[in-house]
C-alpha cells in the first residue's frame, strides 16, 4: 500500500465569516475525500464540522464542493486528483453556512412541505394496489433521490439569485411533483389538484430553463431534466391551454 502527503484547503468559519485553512495530511490507497476530513478531525482539528452518515453514497449527508464541484465527499476518490494537486473543500454555496462544511439546508425541508402529498385512490383497500412494473418505473427513478440537495445547490435559479428562493421549489422538489404526477394510482386529480399546472403556478417550474446543471451533479444519475422537468413542463402546458383536456377532466370529476 502506498501513502503520501496531500495539501488540503478546507473552509472554516461560521455565519460571521471565515476562510480557507491549509493542512498537510496523509492519504492512503483507496481513500475518499471524507476519509481525509475525518483524519483531520482525529489528528489536527477535532472540532472541524462536517455531516456524514453512511459513507457509501446512500444517505446524501456529506454534500460539499470539492475544487468547486458539488460532490458527495464519501464518493469522491482521492485517486482522481494528482498527488501534487491542492484539494479545496468548501461548503455548498447556495445555503447559509452554520459552521465549516455544515450548511443550513432548511430551505429544502420548507419546500418539501409545500408539495401536496400522495393522494390514495378512494375505494382501493390496502393490499389491493395493483400496478405494473413498467408503470411504476418512471416514478421509481425519481424515488432513488437521496436528498443530498446538490441539485438544489447547483441550479442557477437560486444559486445566484437569493430572491428566487421564495417562489422556486428547485429541481429536487419539482421532480417530486413529477413523481407524484406519474404515480399510477395518485388520485390528486379527483380532489381538484392538477399537479403539473400547480408546478407551474405554485412551485416556480417556469423559472427552469432546462440547462441540465442539476442532472450533471446528481450522484444517483437521475435524469432530472429530461425525465422529470421537461415532461412536467409539457403536461403543464397541455393542461393549461388545451380546452378539451380541461373540459374532459372537469366532466370526469363530476361523474365521480
Amino acid at each position, binding site marked *: *500500500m502506498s501513502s503520501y502527503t496531500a495539501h488540503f484547503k478546507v473552509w472554516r468559519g*461560521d455565519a460571521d465569516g471565515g476562510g480557507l485553512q491549509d493542512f498537510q495530511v496523509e492519504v*492512503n*490507497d*483507496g*481513500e*475518499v475525500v471524507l*476519509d481525509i476530513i475525518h483524519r483531520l*478531525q*482525529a489528528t489536527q482539528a*477535532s*472540532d*472541524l*464540522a*462536517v*455531516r*456524514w*452518515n*453512511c*459513507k*457509501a*453514497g*446512500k*444517505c*446524501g*449527508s456529506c454534500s460539499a464542493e470539492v475544487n468547486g464541484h458539488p460532490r458527495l465527499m464519501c*464518493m469522491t*476518490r482521492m485517486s482522481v486528483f494528482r498527488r501534487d494537486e491542492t484539494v479545496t473543500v468548501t461548503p455548498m454555496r447556495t445555503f447559509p453556512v*452554520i*459552521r*465549516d462544511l*455544515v450548511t443550513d*439546508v432548511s430551505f429544502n*425541508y420548507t419546500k*418539501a*412541505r409545500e408539495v*401536496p*402529498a*400522495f393522494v*390514495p385512490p378512494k375505494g382501493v383497500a*390496502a*393490499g389491493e*394496489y*395493483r*400496478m*405494473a*412494473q413498467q408503470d*411504476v418505473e418512471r*416514478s*421509481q427513478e425519481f*424515488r*432513488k433521490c*437521496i*436528498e443530498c440537495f446538490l441539485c438544489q445547490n447547483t441550479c442557477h435559479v437560486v444559486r445566484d439569485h437569493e430572491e428566487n428562493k421564495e417562489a422556486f421549489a428547485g429541481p429536487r422538489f419539482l421532480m417530486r411533483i413529477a413523481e*407524484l404526477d406519474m*404515480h399510477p394510482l*395518485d388520485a390528486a386529480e379527483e380532489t381538484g389538484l392538477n399537479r403539473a399546472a400547480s408546478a407551474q403556478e405554485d412551485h416556480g417550474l417556469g423559472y427552469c430553463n432546462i440547462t441540465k446543471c442539476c442532472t450533471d451533479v446528481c450522484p444517483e444519475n437521475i435524469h432530472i431534466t429530461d425525465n422529470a422537468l421537461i415532461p412536467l413542463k409539457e403536461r403543464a402546458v397541455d393542461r393549461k391551454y388545451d380546452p378539451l383536456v380541461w373540459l374532459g377532466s372537469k366532466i370526469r370529476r363530476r361523474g365521480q
Partner: protein
Amino acid sequence: MTNVERHAYDVVVVGAGGAGLRAAIEARERGMRTAVICKSLFGKAHTVMAEGGIAASMGNANEHDNWQVHFRDTMRGGKFLNHWRMAELHAKEAPDRVWELETWGALFDRTADGRISQRNFGGHEYPRLAHVGDRTGLELIRTLQQKIVSLQQEDHAETGDYEARLKVFQECTVTRILKDRDRVAGVFGYVRESGRLFVIDAPAVVLATGGIGKSFKVTSNSWEYTGDGHALALLAGAPLINMEFIQFHPTGMVWPPSVKGILVTESVRGDGGVLRNSEGERFMFGYVPDVFKEKYAQSEEEADGWYTDPDTHRRPPELLPRDEVARAINSEVKAGRGTPHGGVFLDVSTRLSAEEIKRRLPSMHHQFKELADVDITAEAMEVGPTCHYMMGGVDVEPDTAAARGVPGLFAAGEVAGGMHGSNRLGGNSLSDLLVFGRRAGLFAAEYAAGLGPDSRASATAEQVDAAAAEVLRPFGAAEGAGTGSGGDGSGAAAENPYTLHQELQQVMNDLVGIIRRGPEMEQAMERLTGLRERSRQVGVEGHRQFNPGWHLAMDLRNMLLVSECVARAALERTESRGGHTRDDHPDMDRLWRKVNLVCELAAEPPAEDAGAPAVTLRRRPMDPIRPDLLALFERDELLKYLTDEELDA
C-alpha cells in the same frame, strides 16, 4: 437552574428511523402532540441504508407462504431464544404494515400480475422480501417521512401551523431520560448545531435509537450507532436483555481499507451469488450444521437447480442464516484459504447477465465500481464478516413495547430486545420496525392519554442541573488540563475522545468479536474499566457550536456502558448460539435456551462520576412457549432446541 429551552409534548419519540417515524405517525394519529428527536437530518437515519428488503408473508411469489411459516423461520433463525410472542405478532402483522406503506405512496418492485414482488433471503423458506432494487430502506424511510409531512400538511390546513401536533427536532442529541420518582417525565438533550441545551417535558418517551455497531472497528454501521438508547434505558433504570448476541454480517467489503466493513447486501446471494475460497471451492457445503441438514442442498447441482425449481430442490447453503455463513467465512480465511485482502470471493456475474445485475443490484454495482474499482457484472467481489446488528436491547412487554420497570418508557426497533433471539434473519428488521414502531406509538399514546394533565409531573431542577453539568463537563476538562486540574479535579491531562474511541473499537473487535474466548473477554473487561476511568478526563477543544469532538465525547459514555454489557453477558454465556460463538464452548446447550441474561445499572452514581456507571448481570428464565405455537413444529426438530422436560410439560 441551568439555562435550558423547555418544551412540553404528550409523546416524545427519540429516533427518526423506521421505528421512530412509525411510532410518531401512530401517536399523532391517536391525537397526541408528538415530538420526534434525531441526531442527523430528517430522512438520514440508519434505516436509509437498508438494502435487501422487508420480510412479510404476503404470499405474492409463493402462495404457500403464511404467518406460521414466517414465524417458524424466525424462531429457527434466532435458535429459539426469540420471545415467541414478539415473533408471533411480527409474523402476523408484517403484511398489513407493508401494504399500508403503499397507501402512503411507496412504490415497491412488482410481480407480473402487478402485486408487490418478493425475493429470496437467507433463512426464509419462501421468497418473502418486498423490495425496491437494493434500496429498500430508502423507500421505507422516504415513505414514512412523506407521511409525516402529509400529517403536517393536514395540521397546517386546520391550524395554520405545520408543527401544531407533530414536530421533528433534527440534529439534536438526547443524553438523559428525566424522571419523576419511578415514572418518565421527559428528556434532556442538546442541539448539535448551536450547543444549546433543552428539556422536553412528556409523560411518555419512545426509544427508537437503533444499534451499537460503532463500538466495533469493522462495522457496517454509521456514526449514529453508539448505543445511545440502550444506555439511556439503563441509566433510567430499565433492564437490557440478550446483549451478548451481535450479528456479524457475513459479507462486508474488505478492500480498500477505508471502506472495510461497508455492507454487501444479502440479496447478492438471494439472487444467485455464490461464495468460493481462494482455491475456487464452493465451501459452504461443508458448513451446514446438523439442525439445518434436511433443509439445504448437498451438492452444487442440487443447489443450482433450486433457483429455477425450488419445489423439488433444496436451497443452496449460501442462504443459511447469517451467523452460520459468517463463521464459515471466518474459518476459511483462518485456514489460509482467503483472498489477497483477507476475505472470500462472492460472485454473481456467472449467474446473472450484466443487465440483470444492474437492474436488481444497482447500488452494489455502483458501490463496487466507485469505491473499489471492481465491476461486479464481470468479476467476483471480496467479502468478509462485519459487525452489523444488535439483537439485544431494552427488555419490553411484547404486546405494548413498554420497557419493563419504568412506566412511560417504550422501545422499538433495533434498540429493543427479544424479537430476534440470538440471531436476526435478513429482512426481519425493517418489518420489526413497522410492527413494533406502530405498537410503541399506540401504547405510548394510550398511556399518555390515560394519565390526564393533572397527574403529569416534570423533572426537578436538580435533575436538569445534573444532566447539564454532565454534558458540559468535557469543556471544563479541556480548560482544567491547562491549569493543572482535570474535569474531576484529579489533575490528569485531558483525554482525546477520538483516541479513546479507537481504542475501544480495537478492544471490542479483537476480544469480544465474532469468535470469543473466556480469557480474552476477561481481558476485555479490564481494558474497558481502564477506558472508563480515562473517559472521565475526556476533554474537547473549541466551542459548543456543531463540535464533533464534543459530540463524540458524549457518545463515549454510551458506547462504554453498552460494551460492558456485551462483554459481561458474553463471558457469562458458556455456549455457542446464533450471534454468540464461544471457541471454548462450541456447542449449543438446551439448558441455556431457557435463560435470558439481564443487564442492569449497578447503582446510579452521582453526576460528577457519570462516566463510570457499572453493570450487573442476572439470569432470568424465559417464558414457556405457548403450546399452539410449539405445535407448528415437528417434535424431532424441537428436541434440538428444547429440553425433554420442556416438551413433556
